[in-house]
């Protein structure tokens, strides 16, 4: 492979459409569709006593009202528990519409269908639901105390308890010359894409088929789930993912109640039906992440090398657990980061609360794990009076120890084995980038001027490209254009560009001749989805393999036509030619014509392919072991994940009076293996860093003790504007190709956000001189910590 386009900052082919208002997002489709509104529970925990819809019946434009009682067959069963696990002994999922009981404020109770959303909301407002409120469980501490239960049949609110251990952590800690204990907490945030959830369904009564468009991260997952819930065969259901206005994890959950209710209504009414979520609904009925309490015990030697690590944490999974234990399993395994910990024990409880469900949000449990480990590293350095980077370095896995087996089981059920990486080199790059060695001098100079500045550091390793598989299909049509399809979906990652770069290089065709389709079950019915920084690794690899298969056929067909040896041929700018002899060339379109012998001609090109025009009259038109058409299909299914890594440093300044926290510099070094498109990768890092700044300093889900989300709007949930993000993000790359896939790539999508809570806690601790153990942190919380750290003496300003 010549690699002409892979590695280049190619401008995105998606952009002209999106820049001119011609994107097609979910709510841009289905102008003829009826629309739904959902009556949602106003209580966090209540019994439903009665639902009275009579006042809604005379609302003009009303088409239907559905409650739990109206749901037939599998639709009346709880929604699926998508990822079962032996430790998930008390898995509970919600009903598409609440049955008898609600367990979070926002849970769907009644579905209203009307001619448009305004009228549907009119009707929804007139539906009276009578509730008997029950005491809610809010927050991890309350769930753990278990004085009240979310589900009466789940003792202690414990959905799952999972323990893993390598070595003997307790004995190693007991024997260690130094020991520390940390109590940490992280609050909830959420993916919060600018486009909420949405689904459009068309039932074709003549063909007995359902066509569904949904703003999802997995079209094949939705297809299987909807078919099951509606009693259809998968072949009767097509799922198409239109342009998706951001996902960040929340749209991997499926099926949402609305994703099964909308097609149910469409079939019932024989009418297109659409759900477009509003922002308040997204806050109270989509999904959140991050909330954990953590207790860490660590034993270490005089150099700061960890001898034993014992981690106990409590994970808030919300009211139900449809996505299983993925988030806490990732926390418990990825916590180890780039470090060797010979004796490690981790135990977590995944706990129910009467709040919105918790499912992966960009980072997916890694930010919490990295926070636990990096707070520990800083604590060790402080205890021993050692350099924080130095303590990290003595614990690093060395490049020559790769592949490195931690002796644990990862989220995919496979051994946690790092494939490659060079952590000392990353640290050296980061120290150079941020001028680590000049820091103490800088800090002293700033302090002399009355300024408080702090430098934070955090390191992480990220398992990316998790299985089981993805596939790719590459088809060359008779015009010579290359049509590529893969089943996973896109939410802004520039897949149409990056995948086209791969195919253009593999086939030797111009980028403009390659068209990529993602997330459409009609084009590629086998797929998993877009999550865990896996698209470039999984579909990128599958598409490369599919392109190689197509190329082999191109050369085989062309060799026959040109009466040349396959090995003497090359493809240059869409022409197959004898190497170095452009005059011999035939276009890929012609090769495609030759690959499909025809009986019927319908245009000039096809005339050339009829059975009277081509082929050896003594051979079968399509030889045995071959098939008509010029295409390649292949799958990529790695043994295990590939592990990207990175290290961030941030310089903050805290206001001595107001405790305002300002970012002076933000530095990222990152290793995601081979870069397909560095412009896109840097864009991913920028976006992740901004989300990380939000999660570390601004964003939290402010539930009150009744389980009401008090800040369920963009006015009150403080997502960063440009004014909150650093004016520059300094990035350096290391490229350690993965040995596990044909491109050497590792995932990049989540890297920017993973170490944020850790790196900001580290920097603020450095500025203030006391540990930061609860994130996110606001100025008023920092102010309070200062007061506690140094109680005001008489004469101080109040």
């Amino acid at each position, binding site marked *: 492979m010549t690699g002409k386009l892979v590695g280049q900052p190619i401008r995105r082919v998606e952009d002209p459409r999106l820049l001119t208002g011609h994107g097609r997002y979910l709510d841009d489709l289905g102008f003829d569709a009826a629309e739904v509104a959902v009556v949602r529970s106003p209580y966090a925990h209540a019994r439903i006593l009665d639902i009275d819809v009579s006042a809604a019946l005379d609302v003009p434009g009303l088409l239907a009202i559905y409650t739990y009682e109206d749901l037939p067959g599998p639709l009346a069963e709880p929604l699926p528990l998508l990822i079962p696990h032996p430790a998930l002994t008390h898995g509970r999922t919600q009903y598409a519409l609440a049955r008898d009981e609600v367990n979070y404020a926002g849970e769907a109770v009644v579905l209203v269908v009307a001619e448009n959303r305004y009228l549907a909301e009119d009707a929804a407002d007139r539906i009276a639901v009578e509730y008997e409120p029950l005491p809610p469980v809010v927050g991890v501490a309350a769930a753990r105390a278990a004085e009240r239960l979310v589900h009466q049949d789940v003792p202690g609110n414990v959905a799952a308890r999972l323990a893993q251990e390598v070595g003997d952590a307790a004995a190693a800690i007991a024997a260690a010359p130094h020991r520390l204990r940390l109590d940490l907490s992280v609050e909830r945030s959420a993916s919060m894409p600018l486009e909420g959830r949405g689904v459009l369904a068309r039932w074709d009564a003549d063909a007995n088929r359902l066509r569904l468009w949904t703003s999802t991260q997995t079209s094949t997952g939705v297809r299987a789930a909807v078919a099951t819930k509606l009693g259809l065969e998968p072949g009767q259901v097509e799922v198409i993912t239109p342009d998706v206005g951001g996902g960040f994890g929340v749209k991997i959950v499926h099926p949402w109640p609305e994703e099964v209710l909308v097609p149910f209504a469409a079939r019932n009414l024989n009418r297109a039906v659409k759900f477009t979520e509003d922002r308040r609904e997204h806050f109270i009925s989509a999904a959140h992440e991050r909330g954990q309490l953590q207790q860490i015990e660590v034993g270490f030697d005089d150099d700061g090398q960890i001898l034993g690590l014992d981690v106990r944490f409590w994970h808030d999974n919300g009211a139900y657990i449809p996505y299983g234990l993925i988030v806490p399993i990732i926390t418990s395994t990825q916590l180890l980061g780039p470090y060797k910990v010979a004796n490690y024990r981790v135990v977590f409880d995944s706990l129910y609360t009467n709040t919105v469900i918790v499912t992966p949000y960009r980072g997916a449990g890694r930010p919490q794990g990295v926070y636990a480990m990096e707070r520990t590293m800083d604590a060790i350095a402080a205890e021993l009076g050692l350099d924080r980077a130095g303590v990290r370095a003595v614990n690093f896995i060395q490049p020559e120890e790769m592949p490195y087996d931690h002796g644990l089981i990862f989220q995919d059920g496979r051994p946690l084995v790092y494939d490659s990486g060079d952590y000392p080199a990353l640290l050296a790059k980061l120290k150079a980038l941020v001028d680590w060695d000049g820091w103490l001098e800088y800090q002293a100079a700033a302090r002399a001027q009355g300024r408080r500045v702090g430098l934070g550091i955090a390191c992480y390793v990220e398992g990316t490209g998790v299985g089981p598989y993805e596939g790719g299909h590459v088809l060359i049509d008779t015009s010579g254009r290359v049509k590529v399809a893969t089943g996973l979906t896109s939410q802004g990652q520039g897949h149409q560009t990056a995948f086209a770069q791969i195919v253009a290089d593999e086939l030797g065709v111009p980028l403009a001749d390659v068209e990529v389709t993602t997330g459409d079950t009609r084009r590629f019915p086998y797929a998993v989805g877009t999550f865990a920084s896996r698209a470039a690794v999984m579909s990128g690899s599958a598409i490369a393999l599919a392109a190689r298969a197509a190329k082999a056929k191109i050369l085989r067909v062309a060799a026959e036509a040109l009466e040349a040896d396959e090995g003497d041929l090359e493809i240059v700018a869409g022409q197959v030619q004898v190497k170095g002899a452009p005059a011999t060339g035939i276009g890929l379109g012609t090769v495609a014509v030759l690959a499909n012998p025809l009986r019927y001609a319908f245009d000039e090109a096809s005339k050339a392919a009829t059975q009277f025009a081509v082929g050896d009259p003594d051979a079968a038109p399509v030889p045995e072991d071959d098939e008509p058409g010029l295409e390649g299909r292949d799958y990529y299914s790695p043994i295990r994940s590939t592990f990207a890594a990175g290290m961030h440093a941030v310089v903050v300044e805290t206001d001595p009076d107001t405790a305002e926290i300002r970012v002076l510099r933000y530095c990222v070094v990152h290793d995601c293996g081979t870069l397909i498109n560095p412009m896109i990768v840097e864009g991913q890092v920028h*976006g992740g860093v901004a*989300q990380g700044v939000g999660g570390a300093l601004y964003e939290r889900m402010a539930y009150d003790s009744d389980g009401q989300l008090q800040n369920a709007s963009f006015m009150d949930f403080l997502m960063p504007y440009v004014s909150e993000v650093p004016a520059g993000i300094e990035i350096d790359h290391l490229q350690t190709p993965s040995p596990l896939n044909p491109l050497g790539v590792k995932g990049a999508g989540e890297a920017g956000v993973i170490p944020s809570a850790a790196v900001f806690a580290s920097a603020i601790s450095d500025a203030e001189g006391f540990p930061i153990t609860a994130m996110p942190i606001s100025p008023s919380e920092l102010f309070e910590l200062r007061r506690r750290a140094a109680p005001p003496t008489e004469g101080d300003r109040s």
Partner: protein
Amino acid sequence: MSEQSIEITLTVNDIPHRLTVPVRRLLSDCLRHDLHLTGTHVGCEHGVCGACTVLVDGRPMRSCLLLAVSVDGSAITTVEGLAGPDGALSPVQRAFAECHALQCGFCTPGFLTTITAGLADNPDPSPDQARELIGGNLCRCTGYQNIVAAVLRAAELRREQA
């Protein structure tokens, strides 16, 4: 319970439309669902995210906070109206493509309209002014770095075009 409707005239991207709309119809819904101009996006429905920003008589306004009847007689420019009559991308649109200032593209139309109006007011913004110019729009994908760069690049392209 029948809704009161009013006849209004909106000139959208230089094309006049006569419409009968319910008085409660939001301008954003009118553009999207009545005129099928779906480039204007709705991200929060309460004027915070800026995705729905359109130009009303040249000024950026949040179409999710306006009733369609309240802008009767106005000239409105949506993202569909930013490119030239020949389809050539405007300087702001070109700058966004050059600088990779969009990812999912959902918030982008609101940035494009806001920046178009902002550069008309201040054709040569400093980096700080560029940040200020986009300070009321939310983007969840890009971290804003490349959007700020695109504002500055768009200003250059405008000057070259002038």
